Structures are given as C-alpha cells and as structure tokens.
C-alpha cells in the first residue's frame, strides 16, 4: 500500500505493509539510518523522531498513522550541526558510543520547544525515559541546560553549569 508523508521537508511515498513501524520504513526503506533501533517496545527512546513537531517513538508507530504528516529525524534538525542542542552536545562532549544520542537529541529538541527555560529537575523528568548504557546522562543534562541558555540568547562557559 502506498503511503505518503514528509521527512525533513521532502515528500516520500513508500509501498510497504501499513503496519510497518515508521522506524523500519526510515531505516530499511528510506535508508535513513540516523534513527536507531534499541528495544522495539518504546522503552529506550533511541528511535525518537518528531511527528508534526512532537517527540514520538518511531518503533511503535505504524507508518499508516503518519500518512500526510511531517516527520523530522536527526538528519533534519539542522544542515550543519548548528542547532543549539547539537552545539551544546559538542561543547559538553556528551556522546560516548553515540548510539542512543539521536534519540536523546530529538527528545531534547522537542522538550525545549515546550519548555524553553527548564530547571535541572524538569530536564531529568523529561529525559528519564531515554536509556544510555554509556552513562552520559550527567553530560546530557548539562548540554540541555546550556542549549536552553543559548536559545534564550545567553551563553555559558563549559564547566559553568
């Protein structure tokens, strides 16, 4: 069945079983591998993308449900790693193995849109359903607080947060 939706601004039409999770359409049909498979049951957050601007677990959304919708993936949040969240991730040297980081970043970007001036506790609550086995939570927390400051027009030295 042909299903049409938009990914990072381009229109895509795929012919797959309508029950196929968006994750596997992105990865296997469209070869957009930045979005990761981690658990398949919406527990780890590695597959997080934006559907019409909201963070969603792509492993648990049948592609039929995104027909006509706008999807943003990690590949689409900036052309040149310039998004303040990406920049903050670099400054805090957040990733280790990096596998979960696409999902972490997509969760953080959507969260900061909803809550541009979060406290550390807000960040903890928002990010506590994304799993990182390398244990980068402390650096991610700092990176999100930093990105929030940047997006408000302030900047902070590394180590200041």
């Amino acid at each position, binding site marked *: 069945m042909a299903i049409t939706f938009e990914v990072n601004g381009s229109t895509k039409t795929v012919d797959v079983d309508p029950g196929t999770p968006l994750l596997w359409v992105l990865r296997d049909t469209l070869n957009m*591998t*930045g979005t990761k498979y981690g658990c398949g049951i919406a527990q780890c957050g590695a597959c997080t993308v934006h559907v019409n601007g909201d963070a969603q677990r792509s492993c648990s959304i049948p592609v039929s449900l995104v027909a006509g919708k706008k999807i943003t993936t990690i590949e689409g949040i900036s052309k040149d790693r310039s998004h303040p969240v990406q920049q903050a991730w670099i400054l805090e040297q957040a990733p280790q*193995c990096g596998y979960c980081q696409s999902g972490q970043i997509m969760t953080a970007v959507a969260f900061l849109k909803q809550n541009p001036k979060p406290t550390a506790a807000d960040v903890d609550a928002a990010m506590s359903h994304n799993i990182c086995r390398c244990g980068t939570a402390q650096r991610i927390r700092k990176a999100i607080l930093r990105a929030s400051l940047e997006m408000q027009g302030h900047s902070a030295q590394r180590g200041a947060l």
Partner: protein
Amino acid sequence: MTDTNDRWQFSRRGLLKSAVGTGAVLVIGFDVFRIAKGQAAAPVSPFRSWIRIDEGGVTLLSGRSEMGQGISSSLPMVLADELGIDWKDVRVEKAPNDPALFGDQGTGGSGSVAGSWMGLRQAGAAARTMLVATAAQEWNVAPESCTVKNGVVSHGNEHLKFSELVEGASKLPLPDFSKLKLKRPEDFKIIGKVVQRKDIPSKIDGSAIFGIDVRPPGMLYAMVERCPVFGGKVKNFDATTAKSMRGVHEVFEIAAVPGVHSWGGIAVVADSTWIAMQARKKLRIDWDLGPHANESSELLRTEFRRVVDSRLKTIIDTGNADTAIDAAPKDKRVDADYELPFQAHATMEPMNCTVKVDGDHAEVWVPAQGPEWVLTTVAEVTGLKPNAIKVNTTLLGGGFGRRYQADFAAEAGQVAKRVPGRPVQLIWSREDDMTHDYYRPASYHRLSGAVDAKGNILAWRHRSTSTPIAEWWSPKAPPESSELGCSTQMPYLAKSYKLEYLPTASGVPRAWWRSVEASSIGFVMESYVDELAHAAGKDPLEFRISKLDGRLVKNPIDKSSVPLNTARLRGVLQLAADKSGWNSALPQGHGRGIAAHYSFNSYVSNVAEVSVIENKLKVNRIVSAVDIGTPVSPDGIRAQVESAIIYGLTAALKSQITIKNGRAVQSNFDRFSTLAMNETPLIEVYIVPSTLPPTGIGEPGLPPTAPAVTNAIFAATGKRIRRLPMVESDWA
C-alpha cells in the same frame, strides 16, 4: 599471481601510496618493540598501527575499535603530541582488518592506551626526527638547533611545513630506535590536556555508521530464531507460513558453532528487518530443550550454598586463618555472605553482522571488539580462505565485553553463504540480545574474619563459588583463573588470609562483562573491609588507610600480574575522601560510604553519598579519585569513570538476569531496567597527577561503585546490603 598476493599488493598500495600532491608519503608501521618504514615495512608486518604522513596531513591507522571509550581520540593525542602537530591536524582511521598488515586488533581489558602508549610515542618521535633532519639538511644546520611546533620545523627565520618535508623524509632511513629522543612530560602540549573528541560530530547528526547502519547495495535482512533454553536445539520446524509471506526470501536452519558458542537456529532472510521479525513469529519449531531446561536462579542459589559449604580448593593460605576465626570473641568476629547475579551487557546497539559472500571471497561489516575472531569464524563457516575475507570494523554502539564474541559472525556467515552475491545484515532483536548474551557470572561468597581490640585484622577468609568464565571459554585453565581478581592480591594487612574456591555447574553462558570478575570481587572485598572496620569500631577510611602500608602485593597465582602498590591505593582513598569532605557532617538520613579497588593495573576510589528518607533511597553524589599513571586524555578519563559508575550503579540498584526453566527471564528494557537521568547522581572525578606509564580506565571505575553505595546505606541506616541488585526491603 595468487589471490593472497593480489590482496597483499592492493592493501600495501593503499597504505603506501598518497593520493594527494606529489604523491610523496612517509609511512611507518610500529608496535612497542619495533618500527619499520615504507616498502621495507611491508615484509616484516603485521604491526599494531601505522602512521601515514603525506602532503594532505597526518593519519593514524589504528586497529582499536571505537565503542564509546574515546580511543579514536586518545591514541592520536599521543601521536600528535610526540610528532609536534596541532590536535586538529591529526586524522584517525580504523585500520582494515588485514592480518598481513595489522596485528592484534582486539579491543578490551582497558588496554588500548596502556598497550599503545610507548609505540605511538616512539613512532611519533621517529617521524619527527626524520622530518627535522630533512629540514636541517635543507638549511645546512644541525638538527638539534631546529624546533618543531604545530607541524612546522623552524630554525631562526626559516620555516618548513611537514607537508613540504615529507618527500625528503620518506627517503631517509629510520633513526636508531634505541636513541630516539622522546618528549619530556613537562613539554607535552596535547597529552594531559582537554581536547574535543574526533568522533563526536558524526554522533550528533545521524551520520555515524554503526554496524546496523551499513547499507551495501542489494542488502537483505536476516533474523534467527534460537532456542529460548540455553543449549537447546532444533528438532524439526515448519516454515510454510513464514515462507509464503511477501518479502521473505529464504528460511533455513543454521548450525551451532561450538568454537564460538553460537547457538544455531532457524534463519529468516527478508526484504526488511520488520518483515524478518514478523516472519519468524510464524515459524513452528519443535525444540529439543537439552540438558539445562530445569535450571533456575533459585536452584542455582541453593547449589551455590551447598558448594560454598563443601570442601573447596585452597588458593591462598597464609596460615592460621581458620584457628583465628574460631578463637575470636563473638563481637570481634564477622561472618557475611555476599551474592551477585548474572548481568547482561545490553549494549544499546543490538548484536549484528553484515556479510556478503561472493564466489570465492567475502566482505564483512561488523561492530566488533575482536575483528580477527570474526574473520576466522566467517572463514570457518563459509569455507573460504581467511585471506579472501575482508572485515570492515564499524563504530560500535557499546561493547562492554559483549562484542569480543564472534557468535553473530558465525550466524551471519552461514546465512550469507545461503544467499550468495547479496549482502545480508543479520540483526538481533533486543530480546535476542538480552536472552542470548554471555552474562557476567553469578557468584556467592562466604566471608569470615576477626579483628582485635586495636583494630588489627586477625584473619580474613574468603570462600567463594561462581559459574566461571574459564569453564566456558578456556576449559583447560583452572576454573578459578577467571574468577578471583584482586582477592589474589589482598591489599589490606591481615595477620592471616585464606582464599578458597570451587566452581558451580551451570548451563548459562557467561563471559567478560565490564570489569569482569572485579565487578563482583570489588563488591565483596570492599563491603567486607567496611564490615570489619565497623566491628573494630573504626572509621572506614582510617581503617583502610591503616592497613595500606606502602608494600607491593604480588599475585602468587599469576606471576605475570603487576604487583598492587598499596601506597597508590591509599592515595586514591585519601584523595576521594578529601574531595568528598569525608569528615563533614551530613543531614539526618544521609550517609557516606567509601570503597577502593585495584583492577586492570589502575587504582580507583569512590565515595558515595546517599539519602534514605521515608524509605526512599537516592544516590546523590559520587566522588571518584583515579590513579592511572600519566593521564592522557583527562576529559576522556572523566567520561569513562562517569560511564563505569553509571554501569555499576545500574547493576547495583536496578538490573539483573534471572533464570527460570533454563532461560533468561528478562528480555527487554521493561524488565531489565537501567539507571534513569533522574536517578543519576552528580559525579565528580579527580585524577592523581602522574608521569608513570598510563594504565586503563574503561573498566576500573566500576568495581568500587556498588560497595561505596552499600557502605553509604549502612552509614545512613545501619542496614548492611550483601546481595545485589538491592531491593527496597534491604534499606526500608
């Protein structure tokens, strides 16, 4: 010309030829003990690493896998510093897995920096010497009068860039290896400084390629249904429905490969991962459940207790421990049993391996810690010659020891052989990954000992049993060889010390999990010394310090082990204590605990601060002090310690693998829970300044984590936790 020679020529051309500028290139192959240049290097290879300098810049071709530990930055840091170039001007490439050119590529045991340090420095110094000699010749001055900075050789007002000197340098002989002049530590410009990791940009925009992300043209996807019971086999199967599904190409049985302990099962090859996942659900398989179908964690626990009560093998006995324990007054004697469960690695990227078999050769893309083993395994299962197989190591989405295995290669090789001409990506589901791991062994430890009125340790007896790794992977070695860790190098002064062990039989697969046996032994030793301190009525820090008198402790079982330096252990204890404010008061319901452990030749002490308020446990802060010799990449070290602490906290507070009916109970992150951000303590890492050769840090932060927390809970509540992972009833 034979196939082998073709390949050799190809590899050598790739390595020795520059594609830029005049084509001049200086290539050096090296390891710690030898070094060779250019064409002359090829016949005497393999080497562990190569440097290539051409007009385009400096590249380190390194065999070490990047699994998040930052090795693709810490190794070029050493090279760039010794060579005299700026951090931004060194590139790093993962070496191709070509055994003719590259030696051991295994990545693990916290050994990459320690094992590469001297080789990198010698090779960097050799290249710098040749580049300087070329400039000196050009200017007709003495090489000693030239200086090197940021890839430029200078003499007075004369300057030449490395790129301008490569051609001349490539024609010089290598300098005398024994006379190489290495930089003095005080002249280091990159080593010991904070730099930005080279792998991070690709990890924030989705462009990093992990094994699961490779997409060679025409690729198919495969999954394997394995027997849920460890050691079970396919009796027969019906794949009619699965085969009839749209997008399913092939369904067939693959064999277990005993050498790598892979399980065998029914493989489904399909157009996408999702189709393969759906098709395997339609398989009807009749399993022979094998000899372990009744195994359970409960039965294993009973067996552990029976074994630990039986006559064990004496490993170390300094004399009189039994007598001293029996004679001790009740209030000065401490008996404690400690228990640790199986643990899964649960790397975020599930196991996978992509293989294309094409005629008489094959190509492999794999996130592996041991690419050579992948290569020989694919050769074994495909029947192809090892030199006809090219292995590309991708980025690893976590390793923690799991990716040292080659079971996924045994499966992927067999699958690809059935679909010749097309690459096939074998993917494990999360459930596959968690229920068919090689787990951290479960273990049981019975400690007895006594202190006297002055706080001396009169006796320390450690009787233990476990499901040993050695029995699984090196059955000819004594089972205890993989299980005892630092208990064979007892750091604390004790009048008598006795160590005893026997294995317990189990069908559960096990292997190396982050910090291996130290993850269990560290918990036991550092809990028990804390218990002895309290029995002696001493402060746990002071008690430990008083037992570390600066002596070196050799390993009587393994003479190749590096002696434990009790002064360095004391040093990290003191530093962690000082930075944590050990003696400062804490609010009601809060407690502080300390632990220190020696593993992988490194010394780490952690202080945990916890609170137990209205029965709610929170780990608020962990202060860590590490002594790992020369700190090469301080921010990388901090990241690794943070990482090991979180991994250790998850195992102490949240996760375990239990066994029921011969299978793993936990199959996904819903039941194998991990530490979330709102449970993540503030972690501070302090590094002891040192000019000793560097030792590893990927693992040593883990062992002192759990005991620091349980010791802190004891300080806060008076409740002693001896079984991990802890549960609410332990502290509430």
